[in-house]
């Protein structure tokens, strides 16, 4: 018996000093959050959702700008690029390994994954007041990412829940039409107030039902579907909650962020390190015209754009800096033009932290698209002319009438042309050219003979790294021309 007592005591000692069972082996860190101890409450779902938003900052102040502006006719084909990689984009010579397209792909899928986790994990939590709203915001972000992916890459993998390690090697591309269908159906679904998005335009920074309507319309129009787009645009206009600013200079002031002229924008804040807008810093180094004088890259404006402005267009000098003074030697560098739209009238916290937001859907955009649709329905449309001239008046330009624009197609040309100046330095131009099929004519004329445009470049190549990782063309194929 004594022997068993000894055994018994030694077991007690073991148990007392280190209570040992298999639960000891389930350790989650205290200093860090992990997937093991996060997503447990409604607050954490909200924080995870904010985590998904946070990557929008770098996506839209740098990557999307590179992809959309450098490729159009608003940006110089030769000047202002730090390296060949950047230059290749503007010269329609990028390959599938391009860092620009790879970054967009990676960031979009990173956000999609975060959103998918939010949606999945929120289902494990009991109902709470903002649950619908959280899920609807998550769906908005996901649809926005697929909208970006489908128009940049065409057919892309459509993943709607978190993808595991092994499964990821089997995920193939979904056809462009199907991805667009998903995008538009999602935006449409969450544009219904019952889905959970706010219908209050004052819910600053988060997507509202109007943001969803605006994106649904843009996604339809990108496919050339005016009919389906129209009711979404109309509902924004009819809400009465939005107005175009009367002064173009006010549109890009930090103080007017989230004003009634904005339907959806990416939010930047210069007071918190890492949350600022880096776009305005892309100016010549030591340009005295820009507070804190920029850094290295000069995103140069094309001569074609500069000389295309109508005389008296107020927007030109609010968008483009024509020449600059060096803080180094005081010399003025003439004929060197760069974007100043976001930097003008704003001041940064550091050279790369600006507070001004980047609009994705401006009310002006909504109205102009609406005018475009009205024009397609009947010519001449008084409402369409009225919208066009409202924009022109704000720009300090004379009205256009059916005398100058004597046909349906000349109105369309005029409004696309107007959009070029109205949205110069924003991302719309490249997409307008693609959706109207004007890209081949316009860009072939614009491109220097050494760097010709080819319609193959309407889509980026699927990032080479992804192709190599899956290493099976029957699952992940490459776009033509890459």
């Amino acid at each position, binding site marked *: 018996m004594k022997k068993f007592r000894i055994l018994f005591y030694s077991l007690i000692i073991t148990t007392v*000093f280190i209570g040992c069972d298999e639960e000891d*082996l389930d350790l*989650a860190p205290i200093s860090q959050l992990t997937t093991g101890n996060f997503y447990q409450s409604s607050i954490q779902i909200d924080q995870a959702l904010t985590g998904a938003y946070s*990557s929008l900052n770098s996506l839209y102040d740098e990557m999307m700008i590179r992809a959309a502006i450098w490729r159009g006719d608003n940006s110089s084909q030769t000047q202002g690029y730090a390296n060949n990689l950047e230059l290749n984009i503007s010269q329609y010579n990028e390959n599938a390994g391009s860092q620009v397209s790879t970054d967009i792909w990676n960031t979009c899928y990173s956000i999609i994954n975060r959103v998918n986790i939010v949606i999945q994990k929120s289902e494990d939590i009991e109902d709470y007041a903002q649950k619908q709203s959280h899920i609807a915001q998550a769906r908005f972000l996901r649809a926005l990412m697929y909208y970006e992916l489908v128009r940049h890459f065409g057919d892309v993998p459509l993943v709607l829940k978190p993808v595991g390690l092994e499964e990821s090697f089997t995920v193939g591309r979904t056809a462009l039409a199907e991805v667009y269908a998903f995008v538009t159906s999602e935006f449409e679904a969450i544009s219904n107030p019952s889905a959970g998005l706010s219908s209050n335009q004052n819910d600053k920074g988060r997507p509202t039902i109007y943001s969803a309507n605006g994106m649904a319309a843009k996604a339809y129009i990108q496919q050339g579907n005016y009919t389906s787009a129209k009711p979404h645009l109309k509902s924004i206009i009819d809400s009465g909650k939005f107005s175009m600013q009367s002064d173009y200079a006010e549109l890009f002031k930090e103080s007017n962020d989230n004003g009634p002229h904005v339907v959806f924008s990416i939010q930047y804040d210069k007071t918190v390190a890492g949350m600022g807008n880096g776009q305005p810093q892309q100016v010549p180094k030591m340009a005295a015209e820009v507070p804190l004088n920029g850094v290295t890259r000069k995103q140069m404006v094309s001569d074609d754009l500069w000389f295309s402005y109508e005389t008296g267009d107020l927007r030109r000098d609010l968008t483009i800096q024509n020449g600059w003074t060096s803080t180094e030697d005081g010399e003025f560098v003439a004929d060197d033009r760069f974007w100043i739209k976001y930097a003008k009238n704003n001041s940064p916290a550091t050279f790369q932290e600006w507070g001004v937001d980047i609009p994705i859907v401006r009310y002006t955009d909504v109205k102009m698209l609406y005018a475009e649709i009205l024009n397609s329905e009947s010519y001449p449309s008084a409402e369409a002319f009225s919208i066009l001239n409202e924009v022109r008046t704000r720009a300090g330009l004379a009205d256009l009438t059916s005398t100058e624009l004597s046909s349906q197609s000349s109105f369309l040309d005029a409004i696309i042309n107007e959009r070029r100046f109205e949205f110069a330095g924003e991302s719309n131009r490249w997409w307008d050219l693609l959706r109207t099929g004007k890209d081949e004519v316009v860009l072939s004329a614009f491109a220097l003979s050494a760097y010709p445009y080819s319609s193959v470049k309407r889509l980026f190549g699927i990032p080479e790294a992804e192709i190599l990782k899956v290493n099976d063309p029957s699952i992940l194929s490459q776009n033509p021309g890459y």
Partner: protein
Amino acid sequence: MTSKLNKSKIINMKQFNYKIVPLVFALIITNFVYAQRTVSGIVTDESGVPLPGVNVLVKGTESGTSTDFDGNYSIEASESDFLTFSFVGFLDKEIEVSKAESFNISLEMGSDELEEVVLTGYGSIKKRDLTGAIAQIKTEVIQRANPIQAAASLQGQVAGVVVTKTKSRPGNDFDINIRGLNNFDDEKTRPLVVVDGIMGANINDINPGDIQTIDVLKDASSTAVYGARGANGVIIVTTKKGASGKPSVSYNGYYGVKTKAHIPDLLSSKQFYELYKNEDRFGRGFTAQEMYNINNGITTDFLDLVTRDAIQQNHTISVSGGSDSTTYNFSAGKQLEEGLVSNADYGRLSLNAGIESKVSDKFKVGFTAYVTENERNWGSTEAVRSAMRARPTGTPYFDNIVEPNKRDTNFGPVGDLAFYMGINDSQVINPLIEIDPDNFQRQRKSNSMIANVYLEYELFPDLKLKTSYSAYTNNQREGEFRGTYTKSRKGSRSPIGSTIQNKASNYTVDNTLSYTKQFGKHSIDATALFSVFEEYNESMNIGVEDLPYSSLWHSLGTGATVTSYGSNLTDYSIVSYMGRVNYGFDGKYLITITGRRDGASQLADGNKWAFFPSAAIGWRMSDESFVQELGVFDNLKLRASYGEVGNNASISPYATQSNIFQTFYDFGGNPALGYTINSLANQGVVWERSKEINFGLDFSLSIIKLSGTVEYYKRNTEDLILDDKVPNSTGFNNVLDNVGEIENSGIEVSLNSVNLSKGDFKWSSNLTFTANDDKVVKLAGGLTEDIGNKRFVGESVRAYYSYKFEGIWQLGQEAEAAEFGQEPGQIRIRDLNGDKKINSDDRMIVGKGTPDWTAGLRNQFNYKNWDMSFFVYTRQGQMYSNAFLNGTYGDIASDRYNRSADIDYWTPDNPSNTYFNPVTGPGLNSKNESKGGTSRVGLSYQLADFVRISDVTMGYSLPSQILSELGVSRFRLYGQVQNPFVFTDFLSFDPEYNSGGNDDDLPALTVLFGVNINF
């Protein structure tokens, strides 16, 4: 020597066993048969030192005694009896009573190796019965060369272990690798260190003088008892324990002086000027003050200015003893090693206590505690580097500047020192300012405690249960203070102070059942273990700027700005079951089977538990008649083993969970806190697993006194955890996964011989030889080369991928050189693709950072009371990108820093094929010599082969007559020279490591005198 003291402890333990023998009964029986007489005498070692505790036995009987404190013995024996004298560490001696001329016996050093016991982890085994690859060094070897860190004593003394110095700073740690590298990350290929049964303790916390044995478990069949922690080999450190008997007191101490040694000569100001006087070429030029020094033959030896002769000393006192049932030991030690660089030093205070008691026949308890306090003062990170960089034309003291320029006057004197030393370089500031403790101090202070308590109970005869509870804790505080005049503050920025506190602790509970039994020819020794291990690591840090007064890191609250702060905790736990059976048949055929099952918190559900099996066989051929008939071998044993073990270091805590990190997003001007997943969790990750086969041969010859061991092994470490690419539909680019493989194979030889033993003279040697070949077998994503990470299938784990240096373009090769835009005197780089251009396509594997082989040779000479020994160590085949040449300590391609005068520069009259012409620069890339990147990098990869006489030691032990008058049992005086000779072609401070970074000290030659006294 303390070693002898311990031998006496061990023999007392043996003696203890005799207590159970009915001694009297035995005497009565023998009395009937033979006429008895009393035999008495004194037993000494070869130098006449009395040996207490020697076991004296009448052969073939149970009758025996042991020598007393002064070596005296007295025993009843008959004329026809044989007496045997045995003592651990000495060879047994036998005399026939009737023929003995004297009963004063001198025992010869040496031992019957086969009877020695090695530790196997959770148990021990006689070498005779060992089946795995385990090597042991004992206290004599560990202490012989007086290392400050015990790890140094393994260098060249254990085959298969490569020990490498990492810095010359006082008290610095050593790198230890057992049988090559199992991982690309050095931190993940370190052996498990077990101190007195406690895993994860630090070998550097232990005073080498307190160590009884260091056992090194090399092959996987041996380390399999440690399962998931065995992959990198295991080092078992055992401290000295008490033994029953009279109290034994010993003192070991030495005092020595370190002086700088083996430093390459540096250029004089004149030599420097002659090389770089062409200002148009080199740009920097010489200031008026420098010209003054050059013209007046003034050269400043900055290395000399920042260093001193330093002191190294050690004092260790120990007391041990005990009664029949209770034994104890206490020791206290203090070591001090000063740095050659002024104000740098290392000190350690160690206190050790142990007590063991047999409470009843079957019940035993024990407690040990080992407490250490370490203090490292490392001073400035820049002292040596700035001293190397400062041109010899510089002027350290402000008053000596006779031609001040603007830079000097603007700054004025700092104390009596010149900040920029009259040199035109804002990156090099006066190193004398760096070594001023008012300017720069760094200190790491730590306290550690290793404690163990155990209860052992004999449940049944042969079956023992042992419960042991161990705790290790280490509290460490680092502090750093940089004043305004340090290099990093450049005389204009305010002082900074910071501190980091770490607390590491772990707890182990081991329950062990052990069973030992002999049935006829069958012997079984079985062990079963249930063990729980938990470890916690906490840290806290704060850094501030703008300290108003010199408070080091002790008043950080006064700093105007807090620059950093934080705290962290990580923990992990392992639960284990282990079983081991040693089976022997007839003592000839030996089998060991081991299995360990470990469950670990680092791994994800479903993969937490892993099993690590091993098996080993041994064949004692020398017990076979056909071998005995040869008459050549005293011992001959063949061994073979296979085992699988895991690498616990390969997965950090929580690595199979996705971390969530903090982000922000702004909602209409209101910044909101967000959290987002920043890595893809791979729950499928398992331990890196090493699979190893080992073949061993142990032999000892009877014809000459030579014994040894030869081992061959091949180990494949599979499931290497590397970043693998993953499709972005997961949201991530890469994930940790088990994808790589590394192979190590090698040969180890250890030889022990008595070369000469004649009269009072004896010469013995121990040689170890270690050759390992490491290569990458598989990389992530099926790649054969990963240039970014410098990993190549088929090449060494530390492959160097660079430009191949092909010597110097010589006169007569003008046309060939011109094809590359070069001229004679410039560096020739191999044009791999023959395109007559040298660019990144011309890179290749130029060498590796692991040795081909290492060897250590220890020689020991004894003559009467004198002893002499020396140790030689060599390492071959390892390369470094020589920091002495590549810009860290001096850029040999520019006029910026001082450099060695030993560089064999090419000149038209000196067709050197090793270094370029400094006038034309190395060539390629740029005419600007400071930028000869490609070619200079190619030149810097050099073999760092060396042979070192690590120490020469000579001692004298007082003869026994004097000893008895002094009342001591041993008194040895000795002198030692450490690091007297280094033979190498590698131009550097110390070829053993790539000396030439910042934060280092200079190599030293140490002369010390010491004493070993036993009372």
